[in-house]
């Protein structure tokens, strides 16, 4: 994925966050969202390995081996942060105490199904905390490039890969579009300034519904 795309997606997702939200960002692209949180908005970043109030990476040389994120990378704890064990951490997640989780996708479909944890016979990393996050968070935002490198769609009618969770995705943000998962299907709400509704539909593997007013994603790359 081009870095430009990553930044666009992360910036747009960041705008979904509200002041005071408890947010869990998945490994990879979702982690970037932390860099673009609008000024005036304070969120609590939860990390499933057992901390809340996660801060940015420490200065070089100031890493603490006991303060890491869910990817094992050095982070910091902000004032007001707290540590807890894994059962409590997933209690927070499964119990509905996380307002928003942002996760990547291999596939996401019009029923809000998400597949992001394995490709049979090829890649079996494990689900880590993704299944609990998808089921437990109040709002599930998928942050993903619109298409695979070969141009095939990641947003599809039905996921063909093993699911992470069934029917739990609320919003899909790509470099091209912002799409809401509704009971009626995928509702296109915003498109990037450099694309058209027709192009977004052509590059999407499911029929899109169109919001009454489709706005432009106002993001500087």
């Amino acid at each position, binding site marked *: 994925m081009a870095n430009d795309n990553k930044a666009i997606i992360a910036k747009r997702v960041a705008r979904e966050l509200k002041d005071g939200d408890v947010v869990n960002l998945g490994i990879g692209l979702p982690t970037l969202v932390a860099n673009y949180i609008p000024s005036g908005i304070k969120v609590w970043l939860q990390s499933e390995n057992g901390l809340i109030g996660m801060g940015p990476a420490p200065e070089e040389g100031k890493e603490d081996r006991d303060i890491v994120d869910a990817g094992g990378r050095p982070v910091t704890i902000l004032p007001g942060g707290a540590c807890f064990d894994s059962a409590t951490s997933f209690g927070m997640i499964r119990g509905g105490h996380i307002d928003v989780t942002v996760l990547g996708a291999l596939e996401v479909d019009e029923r809000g199904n998400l597949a992001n944890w394995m490709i049979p016979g090829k890649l079996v990393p494990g689900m880590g905390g993704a*299944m609990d996050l998808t089921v437990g968070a109040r709002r599930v935002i998928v942050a993903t490039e619109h298409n695979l490198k070969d141009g095939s769609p990641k947003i599809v009618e039905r996921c063909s890969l*093993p699911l*992470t969770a069934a029917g739990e995705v609320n919003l899909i943000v790509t470099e091209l579009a912002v799409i809401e998962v509704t009971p009626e299907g995928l509702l296109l709400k915003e498109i990037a300034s450099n694309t058209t509704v027709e192009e977004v539909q052509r590059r999407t593997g499911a029929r899109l519904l169109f919001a009454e007013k489709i706005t432009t994603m106002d993001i500087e790359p």
Partner: protein
Amino acid sequence: MPKIMTAKEAVANIKDGMSVMVGGFMGAGTPESLIDALVEKGARDLVLISNDTCFPGKGNGKLVDAGCLKKVIASHIGTNPVTGRLMTSGELEVTLVPQGTLAEQIRAAGVGLGGILTPTGVGTEVEKNKSVIAINGHQYLLELPIKADIALLKAYKADKAGNLTYRRAARNFNPIMAMAAGLVIAEVEEIVEIGELDPDEIITPGIFVDLLVQRS
């Protein structure tokens, strides 16, 4: 009161074929001295129960590298390509479990529950061969307790009664594993006298801990 001993003495209790829980998350909060002693000892056919298999050459990953394991129960093995390779070649059995479910299964074993009902995994491959129980229109998977012969923990401070504190995100799976194994071995940074830890700062009460090892 727990016995205080070296890592080598402590892991002498671990026999080939046993199930071993190991605390830690991508290496943070992993008992490195105990892992090293297990590798040194040439342990074989262990069942590892742990969040992940860390990275090659690090933390739990050393047990994979050294061929100590016959099976891994974990939530994530993606950071260790050796684990993936051995799984694909059939040399290592791997069971993947959602991280929150793994935590509750270990906790359930420790606190004497017969199982727990979780919404996690409903409608996914995790559901396979499990009872699905519907309550008030919601579906849950019945997940059973996971216990082990041995738990290897990493704590921050211990007093001589075995009471443990943890530091920052190094806590993770350690406190729940402390309750869920037949023999509990804790590796710690520092061993202090009884009474030096405040009753309110203790996370794992000493009655759960059998052996104490000072980190080398």
